[in-house]
Structure formats: structure tokens, C-alpha cells
């Protein structure tokens, strides 16, 4: 009797296991009887952003009754890892955030992304500049629809600046150092830094590199993955010198960029820090972390200061383009959705939800916030635009570079060692 019980138990276990493997959460892009279901992975975990995607999906579903879109929001820091796992295992979502650069190249080389070159609607092409599409181009084909243009610079609290007696935003690094000293005297952290996520720290290096290195040098390095040019080392030394004045908030090593009131964005939102170097998504993130969850009223923007003697063109700007890709297995309705979110009304809604510059030039016309207008002004006037370096270099080198910068900022390595670590990363993959 007990034996029989055990045997049936065993059978149940085995059957159950097999059944459970069927009851998986795999995304279903089935198109049986014409019904299409698609999954969407996006990286906004805060209210307005999630609302936008839900509404966009709902609006598209209404216009296309046979289509259902399941929206999944993934924390920004988890997204790249999960996406790669999903793409590698054939379980990819149909529509997903695309950062471009080397990360996109890896996906294209693995044959995991849909080529949308011929499928962009003419209306979209009219409203979105070819420069934005360039960020989503690889081997002369377009692999993602740009959605937002997110140039970087320093976002700051005008109130805190005024309280420290700072009149104009700094134009050179020397100005910035002087301002840091003034801010320290008022008791706030001059600069918020979310080094736990590594890339915010690395951005300081990228910008110094943009100022020190000529554009052609940077492009060459993006291909060769070798940081042998002297300008890279110079940029690393600049970062170290800048960090030696201790301008960052306490405990920056375990401060995240966007997660919670203790994050660097949260520090800005609660007036505990005066400024941070970020991309143009920052106003939206800050807005979600203010006590009343509304945009910070005294937020301002100024471009990264100039560095004397640098080989980079003055006014050069670095920024990412957030785009969305279709997985290679996605149904054709995927591209229709991409064209849909690029239309002007959707782009206007995007801007309102994310407080970030949309890529659609028509939608850009309704931007009102002064800081966003400053962002767009700097972007449009820039003689040279680069993507974020870690995106350009791909996940392996990008990650290693980011971590190496954090190490140096924490005082654990020299600029030479930092550059060496970045060079060494190529050996691992």
C-alpha cells in the first residue's frame, strides 16, 4: 500500500513536471485564426511611463482589433541581461527597447533582430531626421525605430545654485570646480552620482573623452576596441583630477541611478544634491521621485563644460537614441506598431509622459520646458554627435569600461590601470 502510494506519487511528480514545462510563461506569437499576440518589453517602471505604453498598446489594439499587446516593464538595470538571455534562448519578446551601437550589432550578428529598412512608413521618414535613424543603422540596414533622442549634460537645481551664489551655469571645467566648492559650503552634495549602476560614473569618463578625443579617434576605437590613443589616458586623468576634489555625494558607490529616493535622481528630486550628469531621460525620472511626484519646478540644464586643450570639437554632444526593435520572429504587425508609436500624436504623448525629447520633429514643437528646450538647442547645434560609449563598444567592453571607471573613482586604481582594464576586456570575449 505504501509502495503503491509512492509509485503513484512518483508518476504524478514526473507527469507534473512535464506538464509544468508546458505551462511555461513563454511568449506566444501565435497567429491562429488571424489573432496576433505580441509582447513588449520596456524599461519604465514608474507611473506615467507605464501608462504611456499601456495606452499606446490599447490605442493600437483598438485600431487593429485582431492584435493584443502584452506590456511588460523591466527595471532598466535588469533589461540588458534579461534581454540577452531571452534572445539567446529563442524566447525573445516581440518588441523591445533597443539601445543601439555595439549591443545592437551583437544582436544583428546573431540574427535575432528584424530588418525594418524597407518597412518604415513614409510619414515616419518625413518626421524623423535621418540622423536619428543613423543611430539605429548597422551594415546599412535599419534595425530599430527611434523613439526618443536623449542627449546628455548636467541637470541641476536652479534654487540650490542660487543659494550657493552661483550666477551662471559653468562653461568650463574650472568654472565647474569653483561651483562645486561654493555648493559644498552650503551643505548640499554638489554632484549626485549613482555609481552602483556603474554607467553613471562612466559617463564622466565618456564626456571627458568626448572633449579630449577627436571624433575620428573615437570612431576608430569603436572598431578596434583598443584604447591606445593618448587622449583616452588624458581623459582618465581628467576624471581622476576632477574626482579628487570630492564633488560627489557620500556613499556614491552604493547609490543607484534611478531606484528610489536614495538614488542619484532621488537626491536631485529632494534637493539633497545640486546636479547630476545624465541623459535627457532624467527629468522624467526625477519627476517620479519628487515628494509630490511632479516635475521638479526649478530644474535646469547646461551642456558639459569645455576642457581647454582638448582635441574634441567644442559643443560636441553625446547622447543615446532610445529605439524599439522587433525580434526576428515577430509578426509583421510588430512593424506596424513601431510606425504607430512614431506618429506625431503618440510622440507628443511620449514627451508628456516621459518629460523627454521625442525624436519626431513635429512633436518636438510642443516641448515647453526650458530645460528640454536647452537640451534640444544644444543637440541641434552640436557639430558632432556620439552615442554613449558603452553602447557603442558593446556589452562586454562597455561593462568592463564602466566598472573600471568606478574602480578609479573609488580610488582603487590609477588612470593607467583603468585604460588597461578596458583594453583587457577584449580578451574575455
Amino acid at each position, binding site marked *: 500500500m505504501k509502495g503503491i502510494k509512492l509509485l503513484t506519487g512518483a508518476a504524478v511528480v514526473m507527469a507534473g513536471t512535464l506538464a509544468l514545462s508546458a505551462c511555461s510563461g513563454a511568449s506566444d506569437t501565435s497567429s491562429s485564426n488571424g489573432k496576433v499576440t505580441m509582447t513588449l518589453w520596456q524599461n519604465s517602471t514608474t507611473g506615467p511611463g507605464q501608462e504611456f505604453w499601456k495606452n499606446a498598446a490599447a490605442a493600437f489594439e483598438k485600431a487593429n482589433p485582431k492584435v493584443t499587446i502584452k506590456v511588460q516593464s523591466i527595471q532598466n538595470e535588469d533589461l540588458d541581461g534579461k534581454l540577452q538571455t531571452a534572445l539567446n534562448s529563442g524566447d525573445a519578446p516581440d518588441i523591445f527597447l533597443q539601445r543601439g551601437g555595439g549591443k545592437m550589432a551583437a544582436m544583428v550578428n546573431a540574427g535575432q533582430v528584424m530588418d525594418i529598412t524597407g518597412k518604415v512608413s513614409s510619414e515616419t521618414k518625413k518626421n524623423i531626421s535621418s540622423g536619428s535613424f543613423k543611430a539605429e543603422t548597422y551594415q546599412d540596414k535599419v534595425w530599430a525605430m527611434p523613439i526618443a533622442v536623449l542627449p546628455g549634460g548636467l541637470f541641476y537645481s536652479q534654487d540650490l545654485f542660487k543659494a550657493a551664489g552661483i550666477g551662471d551655469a559653468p562653461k568650463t571645467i574650472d568654472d565647474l570646480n569653483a561651483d562645486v566648492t561654493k555648493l559644498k559650503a552650503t551643505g548640499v552634495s554638489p554632484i549626485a552620482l549613482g555609481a552602483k549602476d556603474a554607467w553613471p560614473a562612466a559617463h564622466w569618463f565618456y564626456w571627458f573623452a568626448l572633449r579630449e578625443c577627436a571624433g575620428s579617434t573615437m570612431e576608430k576605437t569603436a572598431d578596434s576596441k583598443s584604447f591606445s590613443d593618448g587622449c583616452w589616458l588624458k581623459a582618465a586623468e581628467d576624471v581622476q583630477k576632477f574626482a579628487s576634489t570630492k564633488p560627489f555625494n557620500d556613499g556614491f558607490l552604493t547609490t543607484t541611478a534611478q531606484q528610489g529616493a536614495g538614488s542619484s535622481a532621488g537626491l536631485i528630486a529632494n534637493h539633497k544634491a545640486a546636479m547630476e550628469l545624465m541623459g535627457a531621460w532624467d527629468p522624467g525620472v526625477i519627476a517620479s521621485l519628487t515628494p509630490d511626484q511632479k516635475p521638479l519646478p526649478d530644474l535646469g540644464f547646461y551642456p558639459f563644460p569645455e576642457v581647454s586643450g582638448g582635441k574634441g570639437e567644442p559643443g560636441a554632444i553625446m547622447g543615446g537614441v532610445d529605439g524599439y526593435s522587433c525580434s526576428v520572429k515577430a509578426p509583421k504587425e510588430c512593424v506596424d506598431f513601431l510606425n504607430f508609436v512614431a506618429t506625431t500624436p503618440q510622440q507628443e504623448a511620449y514627451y508628456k509622459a516621459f518629460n523627454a525629447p521625442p525624436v519626431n520633429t513635429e512633436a518636438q514643437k510642443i516641448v515647453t520646458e526650458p530645460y528640454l528646450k536647452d537640451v534640444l538647442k544644444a543637440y541641434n547645434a552640436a557639430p558632432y554627435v556620439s552615442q554613449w560609449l558603452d553602447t557603442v563598444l558593446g556589452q562586454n567592453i562597455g561593462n568592463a569600461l564602466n566598472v573600471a571607471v568606478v574602480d578609479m573613482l573609488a580610488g582603487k586604481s590609477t588612470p593607467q590601470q583603468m585604460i588597461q582594464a578596458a583594453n583587457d576586456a577584449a580578451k*574575455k570575449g
Partner: protein
Amino acid sequence: MSNTRENTSAGVLPQPELAQHDGGGAPASPPSPPRSPRTGAGSSRAARRGRTGWAMRLEIALLAGPAAIVFLAFVIVPVAIAAYYGFFRWQGYGPATDFVGLQNYLTILEDSAFQQALLHNGLIVIGSLVLQGPAAILLALLLNRKMRGQSLIRVLIFVPYVIAEVVVGTGWSLMLATNGALNGLLKDLGLGALAHDWLSDPGLAIWTLLAILTWKYVGFAVILFLAGLQGIPEELYEAAALDGASYWQIQRRIALPLLGPTLRIWAFLSIIGALQLFDLVYIIWGQYVASTAGTSTMATYMVANGRNAGNFGYGNAVAVVIFLISLIVALFYQRFVLRRDTEGAITGDRRTGRKKR
């Protein structure tokens, strides 16, 4: 049937002796009762009856088969796969084509980040043993008496062990944040000067990690030691007391040595666990700053440089390295530390032999 009990104070361990299933292994501790005459006759009769082939072989296959298959598929095959892909540079999709031989392994051994992770693992191993061991022994000695509430006390001490490392990590990282509860409490008590960046100060972080680990696992050690202490017969204590020994003398001269086997098992489990530490570090420090904060481990190095960077070939090589290191440590430990407890075990000496007498 005393000899069925003897050899198994090391029973939790790999390779207690296998060959003599009817007991009779070498005694692990002095006061064990003398070995009674072996029941070899009975066991060999039982064995001989089944020695003829097919029925027995079929039974063995049926009984051990499922376990062996599952184990092979999900443990052994991955070891083989790790070894295989470790020789390639491979991004994780399609077949592996870029054969690099031992290059990955060279890179690992030369990488200062890995060396630091190894160092941190070493610190964690030693720190765990040094911090948890004495504290747990003291607590166990203190609590090893019959008193009311002993059950409740034991349960409460054991609670942190039961909670997932993820939960522990999430909770502690909120508590120890620069503006978190611990610093807040210190400030409230007027000890604001003691407030530090517990998690982000590279000099301090590893100690914070050791403190959290101690908090989580000391209860397990206490329970284990209590169990070991309860294996010591009362008569010994009484005899020593009659001879005039004080309480602490009894503990030091009698209880502690007899706790030896338990201590050695606990140390083994502790060492292996410390070498494989991942969850706690990953949750609290994340995938990027663990090395900067001085708390990276070999496992976090593997995940950060393997899967998270898309370098699956390299990640597999790191896995093999961790496996080999654990294996070497375990064999070393078995051979030299546990030799007394496992006479006749596979890696021990063969003096007592494996044949029936």
C-alpha cells in the same frame, strides 16, 4: 549493535566508508563502546543471496537509475559542457567556433579582478570560521543544559538561517544604506560619529559582509554543535565532576574534544559554502561595484564577466576554475583534516582495508 553507530559522526560528509555497510568502521572518538563481534556472517549471507546477476542488477538499475539519470543530465553534463565551452570564445548563440585553447584560463588567472575575488573568498572562508566558530561553540556550551525555554531559544537563534539570502540581502542593504536605519539609530543614540558608509566604504564593506554572514549562519552552527554536544554521554561529565573538575574545565577538556567531529563537519560545510557565496553579495552590491567595494566573490566574478557581459565561453571557464578549486580544497580537507573521522574512506589511507574480516 553498537557498531552501527560509530563511524557516523562524520556521517553528513561525503565518503564515510562505504565498503562495510554493516558498520564496524574505525571509531571516531575514544569513549565509544568496544566493537562487538562482527555480524559478517549474516551480511555476507544476505549479500551472497543476491549476488547472482540479473535480478539484482535490474533492481539496482531501477532504484538508482532515475537519480543517476537526472544527476547526469543536470549536474555532470553541465560540468562537461563547461569544460568544453571553456576552450572557446563564445557569445552564447549558435555553435562555438572560436577555439582559444587554454587562453580563457590564462586570462582568468592573470586577471587582477579574479585574483581579488579569490582573495575575498579566502577572507570570507577564514572570517566565517573565525567569527562563527568560537561564538557558536560558546553559545552551544552555554545553552547545552536542560532548562525551560530551550526549545524556543533554539528556534529563534535558527530563524535567520531559514530566510532566503535574497530577503536578507534586501533587508540589510536598506538598513545599512548611508541614510538607513543603522546610521539613523546611531545618530538617535547620540553616537553619530560612529555612522559610516557600511556598504560603500571599500575598507569596511568586507567586514559588513562578514557580519551579515555571521548573523545568518551562526544559528546553524549553534544547532549543529548542540546536536554534537548532546551526543556526549552525561556519565563523562559526572565522572569529571566527581574528580573535582570545574564547569569550564569540563567543557574545555571533555566537551570540546568530543565535539571535534562535529566541528570538522561544520567547518567543511562552512568552507564550501563560503567558496560558493553569491546571492548575498549580488543582491547587496549588485553586479558592478562588488569588486570595487571589496566584496566580489568568484561566483559574482563569473556572473559579471560571463553571462552579464555576453562572454559565455569565458563564463564557463570560470565555472570550471571554481569547481576545481572547490574540489581541491575538499579533497585536501578530507585527506588531512577528516582523516581521523573517515578511516577507510576513499581518499583516506587504506590501513583498515575494505575487505570483510
